[in-house]
């Protein structure tokens, strides 16, 4: 390999992939330290950290699955609505049968079915994923409202306790996360999706079928929604029309905060959702604890999201195309 010399070591570090992978973790640590100091240690107490992790689990799970869709350069807006409707129907299934196994099967099965419908609509009609998922988001939210009206549906307290004590939340997330890491980074699934996100046309001409891999991405995201729904049930004990209202936005924010490009492609990492979910919750909790109004927090999250999307559009200095 002919290597040209005169490397600027600082620039080399800044432009390296490793730096872009480590930076989100650094951001999480910095935010935790800043809010830890600002809240005089309340945020970093053991009890508070446990709450942060538990709160982050739902977002982390759903966004880990969603990372597969985002890697392909597509934006899904129905992850939140799918998770909430799935949670509602799986709880109703439990109430009907009294079986936890049925609840689990319904959650995962329904998550997969709903996401598969989105994928098929997009590929069959040739409509962009974003537009299809806008329709799905509206439709699924309306469906949940029609089913529940103003009421909520709950899981009996003793069942919740049993699941909490059994560590189902952590086990569910860890198993799903490990499977996703393997699929994303060690099989053709993740690589193909990233390549589609980089250049869709080139991917097709390299034999990578966009329709096939997009369907796989939605199925994995559907499993994520299903597991996310179970975690939401266990954490909240009940589901209503106001459950997890900003889940989709939280997932998107988590992915970009976790270092993933909103446009997918080469710089997509499956762990972005996890690091980002923790960052989102630390940001939310930290701001709440120092007394910032909830509306202002929403605005701050929106600004953070737009800033990160803007930054991710800036071409790194070392990457022009120096032809000839």
């Amino acid at each position, binding site marked *: 390999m*002919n290597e040209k010399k005169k490397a600027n070591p600082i620039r*080399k570090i800044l432009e390296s992939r490793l730096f872009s992978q480590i930076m989100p973790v650094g951001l999480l640590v910095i935010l935790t330290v800043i809010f830890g100091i600002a809240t005089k240690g309340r945020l970093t107490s053991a009890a508070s950290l446990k709450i942060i992790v538990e709160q982050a689990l739902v977002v982390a799970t759903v966004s880990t699955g969603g990372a597969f869709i985002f890697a392909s350069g597509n934006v899904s807006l129905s992850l939140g609505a799918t998770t909430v409707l799935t949670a509602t129907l799986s709880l109703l299934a439990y109430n009907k049968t009294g079986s936890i196994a049925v609840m689990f099967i319904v959650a995962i099965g329904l998550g997969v079915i709903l996401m598969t419908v989105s994928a098929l609509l997009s590929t069959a009609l040739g409509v962009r994923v974003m537009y299809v998922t806008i329709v799905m988001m509206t439709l699924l939210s309306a469906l949940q409202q029609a089913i529940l009206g103003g009421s909520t549906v709950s899981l009996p307290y003793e069942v919740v306790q049993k699941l909490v004590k059994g560590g189902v939340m952590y086990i569910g997330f860890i198993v799903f996360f490990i499977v996703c890491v393997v699929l994303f980074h060690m099989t053709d699934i993740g690589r193909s999706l990233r390549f589609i996100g980089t250049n869709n046309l080139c991917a097709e001409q*390299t034999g990578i079928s966009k329709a096939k891999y997009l369907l796989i991405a939605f199925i994995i995201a559907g499993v994520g929604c299903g597991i996310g729904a179970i975690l939401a049930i266990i954490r909240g004990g009940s589901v209503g029309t106001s459950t997890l209202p900003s889940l989709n936005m939280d997932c998107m924010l988590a992915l970009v905060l976790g270092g993933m490009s909103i446009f997918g492609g080469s710089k997509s990492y499956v762990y972005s959702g996890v690091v980002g979910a923790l960052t989102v919750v630390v940001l939310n909790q930290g701001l709440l604890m120092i007394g910032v109004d909830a509306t202002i927090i929403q605005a701050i999250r929106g600004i953070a999201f737009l800033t990160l999307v803007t930054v991710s559009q800036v071409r790194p200095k070392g990457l022009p195309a120096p032809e000839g």
Partner: protein
Amino acid sequence: MADQQTILEVIHMDKNFGVTVALNDVSFTLERGHVYGLIGENGSGKSTVSSIIAGMQTATKGDMTYKGQPWKPTSMLEAQEHGIGMIVQEAGTIPNITVAENIFLGHEKMFKKGPFIDRAKLTSDAQKLLDELGIKEFKASDRTGQLDMQMRKIIEIAKCMYWKPEILIVDETSTALSLEGRQFLYKVMAKQRDENKTVMFISHDLDEMMEHCDKLTVLRDGVIIGTLDKSEYEPNRIRKMMVGRELKGDYYRSDYEGYSDEVVLTAKDVTTLNDLLCMNLELHRGEILGIGGLSECGMHTVGKALFGIEKVLDGEVRVKDGTLINSPRTAIDHRMAYVSKNRDTESLGLSATIAENIASTGYKINAFFGNLISFKKEARYVDKQIEDLQIKCAGKNYMVNTLSGGNKQKVVFGKWVASDAEILVLDCPTRGIDVGVKASMYKLFTDMKRSGKAILLISEELQELIGMCDRILIMKDGQVTREVMRAENPTESSLIDYMI
């Protein structure tokens, strides 16, 4: 005080892209009334220095003077307004707007009428410009997307000439032009010289450079190797300066080895929505089969149809075992490869790394235990291609868009060579690459042929077809109209006769 004849001076210029050194202490002077040629291998820094002069990017170190004043443009528009215009290598027009709107892109305020843009005046001024330049092939009101790539390049030339540049930079423009288009460009360049203005011309076509340039400056690895006056031009000497080693002109095949009788790919009565009508061909094991013709003859669609990208409405494409090729996946599963003419848009993931691009054909090959990919195997798969094809890069994890054109093309080849394809469909594979890389590509084609691989070479360069192919199929109106064997020793003029 600068000499009145001197229009631009580049003084000790350096340019680094991250760890890559694109220009290293480059100094030269441009005088009025000359056509200067800038020549060098891909990645030598030609486009980098010209783009700095034209305001597309800034130098890391060094100075420039323009008409005796310090010159540090911050944008192409600024350079254009001060009299330095550049026709860029990549596509520089927007398809969804009219020709007139493309010509005045960024300068719409010139046609402001109250809060609105006076589109009628914009169009009529553009039409006046086209008339002045003698462009009759399209009108200012035509939608750009309806025109072919060549016509779009002509729009860029017109756009540049509107500003009556004192320095016109022509960067690798001629590769996108046919013979008539090139003649038009040469006329524009000659007029510029006659008006005591300056042209900086960049091309990989040595004959073209020697014919049209008064002086040739050779760059290699970001360093100026030397400048030659017209009287000193000698092709082998220039090539040697470019690549740093002796490179004889005859880098094509000299053998008449022939090929096997075994047919590995058949196209029978292939008809597509556009371009092809009952097209037939047979490709044999160990054969380099050339396809040539005038623009619009349909030859570029042949590659796409054979590889399953272009939908075949009637007829069929089959490989040796009888399998119907109707998608790229089927083609790849039957060890076919396709290199598109449009490298940057179809053959590469520019914002992916070199490793990711090469590895994209090897997910199955590098798998172990089901679908799990072995990182070790994959690294070997990628490293081998970087070594074998001598891809100049700072590292395999650098993005492809940091590479020069020739090295990008090597990455495209690398991904298909690595996949051990048996049938290669190559559409203008040496387009826009320098003689050094071309020579290594031709050697690669010959080695592949000898190892029994079949190559379909679609090319606009007649010399390439004559020099490399066992058979040449001439196409006209979407059909093969003539077959020429290597043994017939065809000439360029005989091929042109067949095409016409």
